[in-house]
């Protein structure tokens, strides 16, 4: 399933909404999540999962081809943890 399919299903199920509004709804949801994480915030969607940001410290990496040491700056990375309900559903429970 891709973004446009998600939009299409919702538009088909909600004939009273304009297609462009459905697009804005779906885009807003993902944009809000990204925006929150860019600010270092957590997004907790019970049953679905939680998005959070993890801090990776600076480290000395190595170019695997040449073996040369390169310093890797500290950075923040997005992280997702599946919610319990969805995890159970994926495994045929509930």
């Amino acid at each position, binding site marked *: *399933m*891709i*973004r446009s399919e*998600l939009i299409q*299903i*919702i538009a088909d*199920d*909600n004939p009273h*909404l304009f297609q462009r*509004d459905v697009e*804005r*709804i*779906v885009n*807003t*949801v*993902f944009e*809000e*999540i*990204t*925006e*929150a*994480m*860019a*600010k*270092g*915030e*957590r*997004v*907790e*969607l*019970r*049953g*679905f*999962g939680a*998005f*959070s*940001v993890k*801090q990776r410290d600076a480290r000395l990496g190595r170019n695997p081809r040449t073996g040369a040491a390169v310093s890797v700056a500290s*950075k*923040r*990375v*997005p992280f*997702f943890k*599946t919610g319990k309900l*969805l*995890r159970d*559903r*994926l*495994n045929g429970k509930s």
Partner: protein
Amino acid sequence: MSDKTLTRMELSEAVFREVGLSRNESAELVETVLSLMSDALVRGEQVKISSFGTFSVRDKNARIGRNPKTGEEVPITRRRVLTFRPSHLMKERVSTGKRA
């Protein structure tokens, strides 16, 4: 990291502000987005949201685990797990803390 947490409430509030539907309907639509994604994943489909990221379902084989505290062996049955791979755009925005 900031300890502020967003929930469904903030997402539906954003939809309410952006689109101008009722608060109730905004909340329902946020829920619809999440459940359509969940349903697709439960069917084993990949969910690919451009400039956001990709959710995919992977099969894990059974293996013998170990309770790290007691050293006791525990069987772990085969199961399906969900992984999220953030898009380059998201990684970049999160790593620098910059807005789009």
